[in-house]
């Protein structure tokens, strides 16, 4: 034992430097946590009364109940609209993001400045939240699901552009070289050398986003951009809690169904081994 202790002294000191610095960081983070909780009103007593009320609300939410057939039908239609918003936004974004993705990919666009501009604009689009895009589009095309679809499209162009350009950069260079060696132009190299290879990956990414966009589409209604969110926010604000839980349940079932369908399609497209295509 003593021999081991002599050989690895650093593992036997009780307070090594690394350990001390870890403890210091953890303490600082903890102090910041307490400060933050204090600033945000965690110690004012509202927390306890709030939790009491929360349990009351949770009790009132059960059992889920649409109230009437007319309500249930309206919710169903709104849910279809939500899925439609997500579908349109995702497909339009996929189509529009492809050229931008090509512009941002190193092995396609040789000009540094074009690539830089493409990337920066994608970053900017992505940093603006989908709800803010929804509000901006509402100012352009008015309240309604159309604004929602445009919002999803805009925010997804940012994400897709980045993902697509990464997928394109990861593509094998040999097919492009083969086409160039037969005298094919740069454009033909992209069309026949790169696109066939990356297309399944891109399609699987689009499908993957379709599911998460359905989730986003449920909330853009809160700011008036169509879909089930409008009914949901209204039900919560008017304290129709059984309807609220009914709507939430509908959303959960829909998202789960879309998840199953889209992952089946994804696996069919890229094979089970490739997983979720990231």
């Amino acid at each position, binding site marked *: 034992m003593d021999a081991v202790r002599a050989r690895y002294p650093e593992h036997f000191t009780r307070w090594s430097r690394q350990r001390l610095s870890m403890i210091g960081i953890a303490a600082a*983070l903890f102090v910041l946590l307490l400060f933050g909780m204090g600033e945000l009103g965690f110690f004012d007593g509202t927390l306890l009364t709030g939790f009491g009320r*929360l349990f009351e609300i949770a009790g009132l939410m059960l059992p889920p109940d649409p109230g009437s057939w007319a309500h249930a039908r309206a919710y169903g239609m709104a849910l279809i609209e939500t899925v*439609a918003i997500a579908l349109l936004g995702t497909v339009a974004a996929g189509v529009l993001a492809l050229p931008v993705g090509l512009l941002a990919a190193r092995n396609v666009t040789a000009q540094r400045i074009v690539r830089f501009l493409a990337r920066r604009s994608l970053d900017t689009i992505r940093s603006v939240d989908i709800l803010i895009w929804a509000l901006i589009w509402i100012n352009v095309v008015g309240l309604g699901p*159309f604004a929602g679809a445009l919002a999803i499209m805009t925010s997804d162009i940012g994400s897709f552009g980045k993902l697509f350009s990464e997928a394109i950069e990861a593509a094998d260079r040999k097919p492009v070289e083969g086409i160039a060696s037969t005298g094919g132009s740069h454009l033909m190299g992209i069309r026949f050398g790169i696109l066939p290879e990356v297309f399944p990956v891109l399609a699987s990414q689009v499908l993957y986003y379709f599911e998460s966009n359905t989730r986003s589409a449920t909330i853009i209604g809160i700011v008036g951009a169509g879909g089930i969110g409008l009914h949901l*926010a209204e039900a919560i604000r008017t304290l129709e809690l059984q309807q609220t839980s009914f709507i939430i349940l509908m959303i959960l079932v829909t998202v789960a169904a879309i998840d199953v369908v889209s992952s089946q399609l994804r696996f069919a497209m890229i094979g089970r081994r490739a997983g979720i295509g990231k």
Partner: protein
Amino acid sequence: MAAYDASVRSRRGHTLLFVACVAIAILLASASAEVSPVKFLENIHRFPSYIVRLFHLENGQPVWTDFGEWFWGLQRWLRLLVETLLMAYVGTVLGALAAAGLAFMAAANVAPGRWLRLTVRRFCELCRTVPELVFALLFVIAFGLGPMAGVLAVVIHTMGALGKLFAEVVENIDMKPVEGVSSTGAPWHVAMRFGALPQVLSNFTSYTLLRFEINVRGAAVMGFVGAGGIGQDLIEAIRKFYYSDVSAILVLILLTVAVIDSLTSILRHRLIGLEGKN
């Protein structure tokens, strides 16, 4: 050659079928989402003009001519930004701590019981599928308007999302240390502390940092439903057409997000570097 032609033809056929399906789905969705190309073309000029107007002051001058006028509310906005960051921080830390506890109960290899594992999994799924803003709307009723509702919504969502990721990390650990500790007669929580936790801690931290970036964006829009942070001022400025305020707040949010993103990515790279050295 004939076989080649046949295979090409069958692939073409599949592609055509796929395109036709997508086209029909899009047509149906367009009808449901009230898409109207006419309305879009009539109004599209408002999009660039809206963006241009965002960058002009009340007196018609471009914003960069008078920074004092553009950022007239800087003090108030900075305070709200700090509140937003604190919301994200407190929400991330509390959510990550809860998720770390849940992950050990949800991981297939170390979970103490099958029913507990399935229950925890479903619970995490529920927490991450219901959008943050819906939780925020509910919490606003229970806790009143203010950042508390927003923080709790962030906590719930973070717990659900990280609970799943953490459980996957735990499922990938080397079981030998855990078996070693258990073989000395240690109870479950001790085996987890000394057998499993050291293996997963760096991955947990890295995922938590990523989540923090997402939560900063999430906390910035919590104010849209009255749940604290800078979103409150943003939506008010958008709704009341205070154009230059909108751009000023957006610029502040984008800058903050960019700074946070680069800081966390530096931290994450250092973390990965540390792991490599050990």
